[in-house]
């Protein structure tokens, strides 16, 4: 058993600690005896065959460079998802997984449409949605998700995407409907940016199991010593103003 993990445009979509997600998935698989191959995908490169694809966040300029490159990979990405591959988009990566991003200056960035969501930037007068956040996640066994969000765009879900969770503290997709993130099948997007997985080990393992299912069926992952991860999880929730029980 092995895991193939593709990081899409890591030199452009790495605004704030996005490599933490790669390091955590890699380490948590390896500690279960599952070798991991990390495949960085650069601009203009073909999409490698992988079980899990990661997209991080970037500034406007980097997003604009990435959008057409991602668009070119759309047929291969769709095929990968049909084969059961997992896709996780964080912050800017989440926006690009949707249909489109309407920027503040009126320009439009086309997304790959793997998630039925649309993002609009209401203009630079509107406040950015910034701060610690905690979310009650709807996925089995994941519990709470904690992290930090920082986005100008407001994302709205269509009929074919479900929210990843309900906002306990923070803004979430748009600051209005109390939803955060989106998912459909094996595709996930969230505004909890940068190193989301280090302090959400349950979500990291959820993604690992799902990704391994593509080639190896249901896999049991042995428990790891997550004392520090849980302590960081509880502390992050506390800084967001949410009290969780136990560490």
């Amino acid at each position, binding site marked *: 058993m092995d895991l193939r993990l593709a990081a899409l445009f890591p030199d452009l979509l790495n605004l704030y600690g996005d490599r933490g997600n790669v390091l955590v998935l890699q380490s948590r698989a390896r500690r279960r005896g599952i070798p991991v191959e990390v495949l960085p995908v650069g601009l203009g490169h073909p999409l490698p065959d992988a079980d899990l694809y990661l997209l991080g966040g970037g500034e406007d300029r980097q997003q604009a460079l990435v959008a057409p490159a991602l668009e070119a990979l759309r047929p291969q990405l769709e095929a990968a998802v049909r084969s059961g591959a997992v896709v996780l988009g964080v912050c800017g990566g989440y926006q690009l997984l949707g249909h489109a991003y309407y920027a503040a200056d009126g320009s439009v960035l086309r997304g790959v449409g793997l998630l039925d969501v649309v993002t609009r930037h209401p203009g630079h007068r509107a406040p950015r949605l910034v701060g610690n956040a905690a979310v009650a996640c709807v996925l089995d066994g994941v519990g709470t998700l904690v992290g930090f969000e920082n986005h100008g765009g407001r994302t709205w879900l269509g009929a074919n995407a479900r929210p990843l969770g309900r906002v306990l503290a923070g803004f979430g997709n748009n600051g209005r409907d109390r939803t955060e993130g989106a998912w459909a099948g094996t595709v996930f997007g969230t505004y909890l940016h940068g190193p989301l997985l280090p302090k959400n080990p349950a979500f990291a393992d959820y993604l690992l199991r799902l990704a391994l299912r593509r080639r190896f069926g249901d896999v049991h992952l042995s428990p790891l010593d997550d004392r520090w991860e849980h*302590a*960081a999880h509880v502390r*992050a929730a506390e800084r967001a103003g949410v009290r969780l029980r136990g560490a």
Partner: protein
Amino acid sequence: MPPRVWAALTAGKLAAQLSRAFRIGGGTVVPGRVARWLAPDLLRRLARGLPHGAVVVTGTNGKTTTARLVASALRAAGLRVVHNRAGANLPAGLVSTLVLAADGGGQLRADVGVFEVDEATFPRVAGELKPRLVVLTNLFRDQLDRYAEVDRVAVGWRQALQTLGGDAVVCFNADDPQVADVARDAPRSVAFGIEDVEAGRETLEDAADVRYCYRCGVPYRYRVVFLSHVGHYTCPACGTGRPRPAVRAEAVRVAGTSGFTAELAWDGERVAVLSELPGLYNVYNVLAAAAAAHALGIPPQALLRAVQATKPAFGRGERLWWRGVLLQILLVKNPAGFNEVLRALRAEPVRSLWIAIHDRTADGRDVSWLWDVDFETVRESKAWVTVTGLRAEDLAVRLKYAGWAEDRIAVHRDLLRALEHAVAHTPAGGTLYCLPTYTAMLELRALLARQGVAVAFWED
């Protein structure tokens, strides 16, 4: 003087006396808030009274040390200097500094002002301060929760530089592509940079922010990297590259956290400097100060005296004895700065480390940046590590995934308890390296002051 201005000055001075009398703080911010509320144009009005004008130092890293060097060189040249030495670099802090330097009639007891200014604030105060000289140090990722995006800070700078007077000079870091891009078209400019390629390395760190040419969207090609994205670069598509610096550092030799030697050269002048300031990043601070001195016409001897006399600023490498152990405090604010501190530490026999991560507004509320620090480069260290602060647990997880030995890491939320633990794990007479974020550094100094050790920062 309009009564409103007189009232603002008087109220500001009174607020300073009160906040010191009641030990609320150092009086570096509150007087400015009060005075600015009464007279919103006070900054412009007071700055206008500086006969030799204002010097502004801005950028992500190096502001405090560079401003101290420039102020010290100006003093060595015989000028009276008003300077926000304690590092209060937002508008209220700038006003406080000037209010306290003015007499009751609003006359400044100074010839020239030296102001470190927060990099996102600079565009808002450039018009009021009307600086004769602006020093741009560098632009790294820092506190994106406040500034949103590094690019937006650069856009603000570009606009601010266009509002400067025609004879204003811009000193800028030629080795930082984003800074050079902002400043290269300024009508009067002095570029500075490190020439000695031996002082650098060949690869970029992960945290490098700018690697794509602003004109072409093509990655820059680097011949050498000194820190983060700072080095000798060229765009392979349009050929735009590092401007040739007028003020240069050659023969750079860094001795870990204890200082460096280098030769500074400009216009046929060449001076050897010996500095106690730690790390390669301080070579840039000295270079920036040299460029400013050159632009201001300060004689090289005055600059040399300033460099040799400048001790590390509070929390920027200062050393203090406590309970038989030497504490060296090295502020860590962002990935680029943290990486440079780690690099300087690699040259030292580190036995014990104390790292404090807070997430207050002045630290940046988002601790994601810890994942951009290259802790992997020192994973084989055998040092004892004590982590503390409001986000101690985030750092513990980061160190664990960087491969640091878990059984050598202790987590204590309370700063003092953590410090006691770390001291107990430091050999008597040895050095405990203390790496705090900004507000953790202030808290550490305050708690040491209560123990009778450090000077409070407003007296520094």
